[in-house]
Structure formats: C-alpha cells, structure tokens
C-alpha cells in the first residue's frame, strides 16, 4: 500500500469529518446521535483497515453500517421488531470475520462479499417498505432513500467488481458510504426548515378546519336542527380532516350512565368494529352496516368502550401489533383495519359517547398530527353535539308549551261563569290549572225544575287534542243530558258518540251525577273517574260511590250503569280530579284521598252552617298549604254540591 494512497484515503476521511462537524456546529439542535455513530463507525472501519489491513474488517464494517442504518430507520418508521434477526446475523458475520482474522485469509474472497451485500439489500428493502403517508417521518425517509438505496446498491456492485482492497474501491467506493449519513443529516435540516413553515400552516389549517366545522354545524342547525345531521357533520369533518376510510359516532343512550351501552348514532364509509364479526355478516357491505347499526358496545368493552370508560383518546397507529385488533387483520376482508383512533366525547364531568375513525388500507396510518388534530376537534364536536341536544330539548318543550297555551285559552272559555242556583241545591267549584293548562273540565247543567246534572271530567293528555275533546264532552253533555235519561244512559250515549271521533289514544275519565230534588236522590255513573264522595249528615258517614266502566272515548260499545244514591238536606257531594289527591308536598308526599276524606268529614261536621263554598275553599286552602304554594303539575279541580 503506497503512502500516496494512504494519504488520499486519510484526506477523504478528513473531508467527511469536517463536513460532519460543520453541520453539527451550524445546526446543533439537529445533530443526530445515530448519524454521528454511523460516521464514527465508518471512520473506525477505515482507520482500522489502514492500520491492520485485514480484508474482513471492511465487509464487517459494512454489515455494522447496514445494521445501524436499519436501526435508525426502524426507530423513525416505528416498527422495531425486524432488528433482532440482524443482530443474530451480524453476530454470525462477526464470528466469521474474527475466525478469518485469526486464520489469516483462509477463505475465498467472495465469502466476504455476501454478508454486506445481503445486509445492504435488506436495508434498501426496509427503506422502500415505508409508505408515503403512514408516519410522520415518512417524508424524510422518502426524501433520503434514493441516496441510501442507490448509494448502497452501487457501492456493493462496485465492491463485487473491484474487490475490497483495490484502489478504486478504497478511493471512490468506500468514501461514498460517508455521503449516506451526511445526506440524511441534510434531509433533517431541510425538514427542520420546512417543519417550522408547516407548523404555522398546520395551525392555520387546524383553526380553519375547526371554523369550517362550526360553520357547518350552525348551518345544519339553521335548517332543521336534529342530532343526526349534527353527528354526520361531526363525522364527515373528522374524516375529511384525517383522510379516514370509515367513521362512527357512538352515544350513550342516557348521558353519563355508564352501565348503559354505546349505540351507533352515525356511520360513514366502511367501519369495521374492533371485534370478531360473524362470517355471514361480512358477505355484503349492506349486511355489515345493518349488523353495525344493531350493535351495542358496553362501556369498557373493545377500544371504543375503553375510550368511554377511561375518558382518554385512544390511538392505535398500526393495528398489526395490537391484540385488540386480532379480528381485523385480514386484508381482503370487510373487517380489515390498518389504523384506528377513538375519541371520547367528554363534556365537563359527563361522557356523551365516542367518535371512532379507521383507515383500512394496508400500511396507511393516522399520523401523530391527525391524532392531535382529532383531540382538539373532539372538544369542539362535543360542544356542538351538546348544544344541539339542549336546543332540541328546548324546542320540543316549547312546541308543546305553545300548544298548551292555545289549549289553555279554550279551556278558560269553557269554565262556567256562573253555577246554577236552585232552591234544592247549591254548587261551588274551582279549577286551578297546572302551569296554565290541564285537561280538567266541569259543568253544571239545569235539566228542569227538579233535575240538575253535574259533570267532572279529566281529559287524557293536554294541548289541543285534549282541549278539543273537552269541547266535545261539553257539547255532548249539554246535548244529550235530558230529564228522560239517567246518568248511565247519558254516559253510554256520550261515549258512543265520542268513541269513533277521537284520535286513537284520546280518552277522558268522567264522573256524572243527576240530582233529582223531588225524589231526593242522585243518579250517579262513573267512567273511570275518582269515586264520588258523599257526606250523609244524618248518619255522619262519608261514603264512596263508584260504578264500573272504561273511560269515555276508548270503546264505543261500553254500557255504563247508574247508581241511585239517596241524599238528604245538608248532605255534601264532592267530586275532584287527580290534581287534588296527587298534589305533592315539598317533601314529595302525596296529599292522598285519606287526607281529603278526613278534611271533608271535619268540615261537614259543621252541619247546616257549612256552605258548598266553605267546603271548596277549605279543601283548596289545605291543598295549597300542603304543597307550600307550589304550582300544580296537574289541574286541581273541585266540584261541591250541598243539598239544601
């Protein structure tokens, strides 16, 4: 080996070192220990070769170079399992090299060519196995891999042709190796510059995508607000922003009740759930979708349920290495998933549900940046979902309430202004409507000089249909009630007339009595209303009277019966609706019929001096005191008659 040759080699090595040190000085924050290690490795190899001159040092150095390079790649690309065979392989090579050194060139030269050639080919393949959009470092890898690939390839070809020790190899081929780490370092610097530009751009993109999302949500609400539309806007925005192939929104049926399962509320694209799907389902996309829509996921089950339970976003960039996706690895299958993200939708202390996205192309993954974006996005999405849900609840209430207001007007007009007075009986009545309206109605109609009919009625439901039914009942009573019919016949006719007319499910409970002053009796019939209370002064007994029969408006064929109740002077007859007995105290206790009956007994003990109005006002006042003056949740209606 000539001195000039050695000097040339040293000069090349020095140039490499100077370039490296300059780069490190210029961009200290970008110095890469692995790249420095690679350069030092090359330096060591060449210096050792210069000093010792043993051939096996060169191929051994190449193998070591390939191994370190692959280590760098696996670290950057995020899959590190392939290194181990190469550690073993390099140990074998090291053993062969050591034996070679000891035995001093006992083996033919081609043997040395093989290990570095295989190692380099392996590294090249690894570099080209990284897909363009799968990892954050993939752009750097894509940029430097032509240099790495061609560099290693041509170096190995040249070494095979010229041999390790020949001057062309020593002066041209080996120095080429130095260029590889230097190219990678340059790639870093380039990326560093681009990264800061891109960071600004990504922040802008992020805010733009969130703004556009909020705009889309508001637009969807301006039309006809519904949760489904909002969830779909959430989903399509999230999928657009991250290039997902499928997405779902799962919501807890009742917010924050974790014993309840998550139900699919929105689905776009193809979304294979992270669980084993029956084979029959996988045959068609339609079946698959139907299966998914019927699926419930318990909180804590599968990565989706896990995200809801732990309230932590879950990111599985590569499903291959995750046991939870064991059922999603078949590439040709509908259930294939390559990358997965699940984001809990958390609003304050409550979990609303989970947003889950998948990519399902081999090697295609969500990036760290996608994940970060989605975490911010999930906050906004939760807010949007929550707002729409609250708004809808409000809207629903308001619609009902507007209708109630109209119905209240109708009801108010139907309350009799004056109750008829007769020499035979006096009446007192009051209706205290619940929050402006209820379904109660009462009326007193004089049929002739002896007969007076009194009716109390509680119409099911509230609002317009209920008010209309009330109007019908009122009309019917006035139309049908006559001196020729007893109370049962009146109810039977009224029911027959109403039953066909009402929308399904509308009905009324009706209590009706006709007071016959001459005979001194009541004819009483009841269509499932509260029983009639009569206080008989003579015996000092409070009696309850009832008859069989369904509420009116349900079945046209019902025959209501009458019951004849003898009444005497100063007897008290009490009719009332649910609102009285179901009035609640602040502690949640019901007023109850026993309390009502006790009250009637007490008041009635006053005998002849007790007026109907006194009974009415006593009951009203007691109920009001019992509830602490709270507004009733149901109408409180009272109708009292005192026989004169």
């Amino acid at each position, binding site marked *: 080996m000539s001195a000039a040759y050695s000097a040339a080699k040293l000069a090349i090595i020095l140039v490499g070192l100077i370039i490296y040190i300059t780069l490190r000085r210029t961009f200290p924050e970008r110095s890469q220990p692995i790249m420095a290690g690679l350069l030092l490795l090359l330096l060591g190899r060449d210096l050792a070769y210069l000093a010792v001159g043993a051939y096996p040092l060169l191929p051994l150095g190449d193998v070591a170079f390939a191994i370190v390079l692959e280590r760098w790649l696996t670290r950057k690309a995020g899959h590190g399992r392939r290194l181990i065979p190469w550690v073993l392989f390099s140990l074998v090579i090291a053993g062969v090299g050591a034996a070679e050194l000891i035995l001093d060139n006992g083996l033919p030269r081609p043997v040395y060519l093989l290990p570095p050639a295989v190692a380099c080919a392996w590294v090249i393949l690894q570099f080209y196995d990284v897909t363009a959009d799968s990892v954050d470092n993939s752009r750097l890898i894509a940029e430097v891999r032509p240099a790495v690939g061609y560099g290693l390839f041509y170096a190995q070809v040249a070494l095979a042709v010229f041999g390790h020790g020949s001057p062309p190899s020593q002066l041209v081929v080996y120095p080429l190796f130095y260029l590889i780490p230097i190219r990678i370092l340059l790639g870093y610097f380039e990326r560093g510059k681009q990264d800061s530009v891109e960071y600004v751009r990504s922040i802008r993109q992020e805010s733009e995508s969130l703004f556009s999302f909020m705009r889309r949500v508001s637009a969807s609400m301006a039309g006809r607000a519904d949760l489904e539309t909002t969830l779909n806007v959430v989903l399509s925005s999230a999928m657009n922003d991250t290039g997902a192939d499928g997405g779902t929104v799962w919501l807890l049926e009742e917010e924050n009740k974790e014993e309840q399962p998550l139900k699919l509320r929105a689905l776009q694209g193809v979304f294979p759930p992270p669980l084993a799907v029956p084979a029959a389902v996988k045959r068609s996309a339609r079946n698959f979708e139907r299966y998914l829509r019927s699926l419930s996921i318990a909180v804590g089950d599968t990565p989706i349920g896990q995200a809801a339970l732990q309230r932590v976003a879950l990111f599985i960039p590569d499903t291959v290495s995750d046991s939870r996706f064991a059922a999603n690895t078949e590439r040709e299958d509908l259930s294939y998933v390559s990358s997965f993200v699940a984001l809990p939708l958390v609003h304050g202390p409550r979990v609303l549900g989970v947003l889950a996205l998948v990519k399902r192309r081999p090697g295609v993954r969500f990036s760290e940046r996608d994940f970060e974006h989605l975490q911010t996005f999930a906050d906004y999405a939760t807010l949007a979902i929550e707002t729409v849900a609250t708004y809808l609840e409000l809207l*629903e209430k308001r619609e009902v309430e507007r209708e109630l207001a109209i119905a209240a007007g109708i009801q108010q007009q139907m309350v009799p202004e004056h109750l008829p007075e007769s020499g035979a009986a006096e009446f007192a009545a009051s209706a205290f409507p619940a929050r402006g309206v209820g379904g109660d109605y009462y009326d007193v109609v004089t049929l002739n000089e002896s007969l007076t009919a009194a009716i109390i009625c509680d119409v099911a439901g509230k609002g317009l249909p209920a008010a209309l039914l009330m109007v019908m009942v009122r009309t019917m009573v006035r139309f049908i009630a006559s001196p020729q019919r007893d109370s049962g016949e009146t109810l039977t006719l009224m029911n027959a007339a109403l039953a066909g007319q009402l929308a399904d499910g509308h009905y009324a409970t009706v209590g009706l009595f006709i007071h016959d002053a001459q005979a001194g009796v009541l004819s009483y019939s009841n269509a*499932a209303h*509260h029983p009639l209370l009569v206080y008989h002064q003579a015996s000092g007994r409070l009696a309850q009277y009832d008859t069989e029969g*369904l*509420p009116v408006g*349900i079945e046209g064929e019902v025959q209501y019966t009458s019951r004849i109740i003898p009444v005497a002077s100063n007897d008290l007859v009490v009719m009332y609706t649910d609102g009285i007995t179901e009035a609640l105290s602040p502690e949640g206790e019901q007023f109850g019929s026993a309390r009502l009956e006790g009250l009637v007994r007490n008041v009635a003990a006053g005998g002849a001096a007790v007026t109907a109005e006194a009974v009415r006002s006593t009951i009203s006042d007691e109920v009001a005191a019992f509830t602490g003056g709270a507004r009733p949740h149901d109408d409180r209606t009272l109708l009292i008659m005192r026989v004169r």
Partner: protein
Amino acid sequence: MAIELRIEENHALRIVRVFGEVDLYHSHRLKETITELAAVSRSGILLDLGAVGYIDSSGVGVLIFAKALCGKKGIPLRIINAKGPVLRVLELTKLTSYLPLAESEEVALHELERGWETGGG
C-alpha cells in the same frame, strides 16, 4: 327525567322496554316507536313497563293507542311488568282488564306464541 326506549328482537317479535317517565312531554316518543314497529312487525309487540317510574294520562293514552293500532292491524300486543304507580294509574282508570296486561314476560311470550299457532292474537 326523560324517556328511554330499548327495542329488542325476539325472533319476529319486538320487545319495547320503556325506561323513565311516560308523560306529556315524552309519551309521543313511545307512540312514534309503536307506530313504526306496527308498520313493520306482524308477529307481535311486547311493551315492558317495568322501569317506568311515572305515567300520566297521556302515557295511558299511548297504551290505549297501542291497543287500538295493534287491534286494527291484527298485531298481537302484550303489556308486561305494569306495577307500582303505573299499575295504580291503570287501576284508577279501570283499564287493567281493557289493556292486554300479562303477568310476566314468560306468560306473555307463551300467549303470543300460542297466538301464532292458532293464527290469532
């Protein structure tokens, strides 16, 4: 407190499990659900009221509506687990024998199955 409806499928039968309050503000959801189910199911509907804490007259109206609708369409209907305040309301309105109440889910299922065999409800 809102209403929650869970629909289960037992062969061709649909079981609607009702949770919460069937009142003026929420009963329409049960009504809609029954209407939807009655449009697709011919084999029977089972209404489970076991988890209903409160029912008002609108809710009772929906039960009557369900009976009327199913009767019209020839769909067997059973109401199960009416108890506590729900049963009390049905008793007060004298609807316990009018509505197709069944003692238990097993009895209801048995009755519905027998109904299929004999071709009636």
